[in-house]
């Protein structure tokens, strides 16, 4: 009998009314993100404060939506930004184009660009969607010095660090 089915439906709805709501009160309470969540990119630094990014543009090459723009410049021992010969003088990601696929992270030879857990990317103008290097780079870790650093010659010749397998 369909009337019994209709009444069953009403009963389910009434029962649900006395359950606890599943809503997260968003701006105040945030849902924790997953460990491998792909949010806004971060440009990482070494412990001594040098930038990991060497300006190789492999991320820009890997990017399927052409969202990354890199311009590199020469490092000197007087003004050293990153180990090796070059560093990224300009690093821009257009967040309107980015599809958060994480290919840039895979392409990066120095693990400089890592997708973080910030998903609150909103802006009023298209120009604000372009995130510059200053916005993406991580703060200098404690004990490190800000770039450019004046270093002793011959110490930071190797641009690719020795890397281990990722734990996560």
């Amino acid at each position, binding site marked *: 009998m369909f009337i019994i089915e209709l009444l069953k439906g*009403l009963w389910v*709805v009434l029962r*649900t*009314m006395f359950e606890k*709501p*599943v*809503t997260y009160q968003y701006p105040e309470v945030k849902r924790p993100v997953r460990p491998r969540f792909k949010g806004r990119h971060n440009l990482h630094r070494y412990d001594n404060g040098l930038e990991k990014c060497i300006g190789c543009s492999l991320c820009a090459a890997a990017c399927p939506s052409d969202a990354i723009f890199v311009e590199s410049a020469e490092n000197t021992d007087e003004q050293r930004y990153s180990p090796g010969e070059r560093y990224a003088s300009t690093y821009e990601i257009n967040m309107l184009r980015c599809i958060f696929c994480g290919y840039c992270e895979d392409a990066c030879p120095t693990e400089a660009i890592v997708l973080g857990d910030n998903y609150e990317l909103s802006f009023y103008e298209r120009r604000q969607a372009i995130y510059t290097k200053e916005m993406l780079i991580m703060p200098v870790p404690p004990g490190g010095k800000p770039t450019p650093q004046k270093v002793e010659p011959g110490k930071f010749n190797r641009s690719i660090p020795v890397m281990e397998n990722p734990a996560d």
Partner: protein
Amino acid sequence: MTVALLIEYIIKSVLILAVMTAGFAYVTYYERKTLARMQSRIGPNRAGPWGIFQPVADGVKLIFKEELIPKDADKLLFLLAPVITVIPALIITAVVPWGREITLFGRQIHLYLADVNIAVLYLSAIASISVYGIVLAGWSSNNKYAMMGGLRSTAQMISYELTLGLSLVSVTLLAGSMSLVDIVETQGAHGFLGWIVWNLQQPLGFILFMIAGLAETNRAPFDLPEAEHELTAGYHTEYSGMKFAMFYMAEYIKIIAVSMIAATLFLGGYLGPFLDQLPWLGPIYLFIKTVIVIFLFIWIRATWPRFRYDRLMAFGWKVMLPLGFLNMLIAGIITVLRGG
């Protein structure tokens, strides 16, 4: 008619309009909150404590919206249609009594605007007028979806008005009067037991009235005139800003009106315990009963899916109408057997 009586009527009329308009605002809030809880959500809770100022925020938003009139619309009818829809909804409850008599400033005041002896007829007459508003809105917008919505609405409301009328007829037969005050007093003539007997006399009546009421107010599962995924928004597709707000208002005020009438005809209206000692309780009892019936409306909306159009018509004519006649027949037989 003395000046005092005139002032009394004006105050009562203004009170009804104010209560219905404020009621509209808070029925939207009530519906949103209840629907949210039925869907395991919280609902509006940002504007003010527990979101109680949400209707105010909605109203302010609608006032500042741009008012659009389509280029080829029939301007006069386009502007008139929301008014034709909202006015009947506002005045339909004029005949619904809220209580017996109270003494205020040394005056005996009846707690109803008008105890018309053809109140039931008045209800069905006024309820029919709002169909015009909807069909004119659909037609004057010069939009095919609005037109379809308006046509559907007209066909639906006319079909279900028959059932609505038949359930009103059986109530009238049993009470022996068309005045809503008399109908309420008949229900309460023999106490609580008398009220149960009243509803046992017409087991179908309340159900028929509720289903027809749902269809009359274009509520789910009969909300075909505004079936979003078929007709964008139905007859009010082209309406925006305050003109849209008036349709919205009419819809919700009609819900209140139908609930009040259902409470009056079947649930004993303003009657309740201790009414004789404290006549002020009358409006409170009516309010509680109305809120319960509105809850029924929301509950049904949250549960049942929309009818298909041909089934809606088949249901209206092949099921509801015969049942309405049957109900009327039962009421008639009971009246004859009672020797009324």
